[in-house]
């Protein structure tokens, strides 16, 4: 039989190069994850008995949760304080938080020794464990975020508008619950390290770690909202809410200075200022963190010109995020010293230096790519960035909060 080579393929995948790259990265992560499930964590990572937590925890858990803090900030601002002008930023931030937390959960499924038992946290409670609090908070907040984001999906389908309305009617308790859970959970990530006073360097270990984590999470959230709005406005070629972002950027130096005062105040109070100059590499790391996360962005955002230009906003947000991510890596990895390997480690613990392997990083990158792809798809197909303003007069929901557009698709 002769093949007809001129026939057109019935189904053609027509993705942009970026999407192809993201899909490839996701595929690699999937393969690595399968190898990990089959042969264990050891073969794919450099984690060992001396370094039980590494890149996955520092990047996926600590960084992932931190960059999801924009959601509760905007929800609090718009719903609780009724600052309605920020409404255009609400949905993208809730979406980022929702996706961020899903990414954290997926990453934990790779990192946990028994991912099939993750639900044990719901029934077996050890009240002294900070990790339990984090587990419960992640699970509950993920549910709350799903409820907060559900109307956006439902609005897409005209027949489901009634359900969207119904959720809107009862959204307030969930918003309050969400903000409370976020507060607890952002701060308890800091509490997670309280149990390591003998391992974490004194420049970072302090009893007020939870307060520091919460304060810095606010800055991270503000920076993240600026970043995601800037990037998506560039990618989707839509307008940028510069006047709103300018207001957020104005709050950043204040938050950063409070955070800096806390940091140095605590060191002075506990008489640990000496470590600032005497701990060699650790002192250097600390100053690098302070420089990138506090000093540079505070100066940057204090300059009006930087706050009012799209490029200035984006650059400043990136600096804040880099500095804060360095902080999360420092407290959870770089500044953590495990027992002296020279004598203490038996032969099977011989791996005393930790450096993440390529497959290990590939898992995190793959999960992150999935998050970016999901954000892009949601931004493209769901009313995330638009459809809020035009119907404001026609359709107030009961409490006079965010209107649900009913006529958009009719």
């Amino acid at each position, binding site marked *: 039989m002769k093949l007809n080579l001129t026939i057109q393929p019935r189904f053609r995948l027509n993705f942009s190069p970026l999407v192809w790259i993201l899909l490839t990265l996701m595929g690699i992560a999937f393969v690595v994850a399968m190898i990990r*499930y*089959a*042969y*264990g*964590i*050891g*073969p794919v990572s450099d*984690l*060992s*008995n001396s370094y*039980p*937590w590494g890149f996955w925890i520092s990047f996926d858990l600590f960084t992932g949760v931190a960059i999801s803090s924009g959601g509760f900030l905007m929800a609090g601002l718009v*719903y*609780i304080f*009724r600052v309605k002008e920020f409404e255009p930023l609400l949905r993208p931030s809730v979406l980022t938080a929702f996706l961020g937390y899903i990414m954290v959960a997926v990453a934990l499924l790779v*990192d*946990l*020794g*028994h*991912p099939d*038992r993750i639900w*044990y*946290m719901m029934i*077996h*409670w*050890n009240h*002294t*464990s*900070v*990790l*339990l609090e984090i587990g419960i908070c992640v699970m509950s907040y993920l549910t709350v975020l799903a409820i907060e984001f559900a109307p956006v999906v439902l609005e897409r389908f005209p027949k489901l508008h009634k359900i969207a309305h119904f959720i809107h009617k009862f959204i307030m308790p969930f*918003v*309050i*619950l969400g*903000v*409370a859970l976020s*507060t*607890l959970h952002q701060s*308890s990530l800091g*509490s*997670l390290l*309280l*149990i*390591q*006073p*003998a*391992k974490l360097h004194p420049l970072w270990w302090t*009893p007020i770690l*939870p307060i520091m984590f919460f304060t810095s999470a606010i800055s991270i959230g503000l920076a993240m909202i600026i970043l995601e709005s800037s990037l998506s406005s560039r990618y989707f070629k839509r307008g940028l809410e510069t006047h709103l972002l300018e207001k957020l950027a104005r709050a950043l130096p204040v938050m950063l200075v409070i955070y800096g005062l806390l940091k140095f105040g605590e060191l002075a109070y506990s008489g640990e200022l000496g470590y600032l100059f005497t701990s060699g590499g650790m002192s250097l790391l600390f100053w690098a963190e302070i420089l990138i996360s506090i000093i540079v962005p505070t100066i940057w955002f204090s300059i009006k010109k930087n706050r009012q230009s799209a490029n200035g906003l984006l650059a400043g947000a990136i600096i804040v995020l880099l500095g804060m991510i360095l902080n999360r890596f420092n407290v959870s990895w770089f500044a953590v010293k495990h*027992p*002296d390997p020279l*004598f*203490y*480690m*038996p*032969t*099977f*613990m011989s791996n005393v230096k930790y450096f993440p392997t390529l497959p290990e990083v590939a898992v995190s990158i793959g999960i992150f790519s999935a998050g970016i792809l999901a954000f892009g798809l949601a931004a493209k197909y769901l009313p995330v960035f638009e459809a809020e303003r035009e119907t404001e007069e026609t359709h107030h929901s009961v*409490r*006079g909060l965010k209107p649900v557009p009913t006529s958009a698709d009719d």
Partner: protein
Amino acid sequence: MTEIKHHAYLFDATRCIDCRACMVACSVENNIEMDKTRIWVAGLGITGQYPDLQRGTMVYHCMHCEHPDCMSACPVGAYTKAEDGPVTYNPDLCIGCRYCMNACPFGVPHFDYDKGIIEGAFIDKCTFCPQRIYEGQEPACVQTCPTDALEYGDRDELIKIAHERIAAHPDRYIDHVYGEKENGGTSYLILSHVPFSELGLPDLPETPVNEVSEKVMEMTIPFALGWGAVLTAVTAGVALHDNKKKAAANKKAETKK
């Protein structure tokens, strides 16, 4: 043997000859692969100048703390501290989060990094041989030790013996029983002729390392409830204020008409 109220070990570093029979005994007794032993021995080599040569050896296993940090950290409560000493681990509850490994200041719990989810990867650590001690026998490592470097008995009694030994040979020992007070007390007590830090033991305060973390956890629920109430009050306050403003604006608009 007298009745044991609180099971404990006493390790005397001056007596250890680095034979590692305890490691073999432990693996055989508990059916552990040899490369995943629950007990391990580290020789520090020979130190000092002739003729004052010294050699030190340290036997490490779980310290069976009085306030175990692994137990405090475990989210699902897989660890239990028996009233009479042993700290044990229940693999049926473990979710494999490895937080206990981070929490333990001695780096004791270790994990099956070479097992997939079908085989099941678990934490492993010394169990204090409950199958032996509750039958009136010594733990396997102690029974096998040829030089009595490892001893087993009641904690209070062992502390007394340790201090007596230091008093009898003040030139031979450092005047300190490691584990009597460290980390809130441990059930593995150590006597040494070289500084404890040289044996690789961390310098710990008398309060357990989980103290601050447990205090913060105690405050969590009251804080959560209080914070929730504050948020609700603020929400209601803002809403009330907003409605009043709106009503005032409406009234104004009406009167103008």
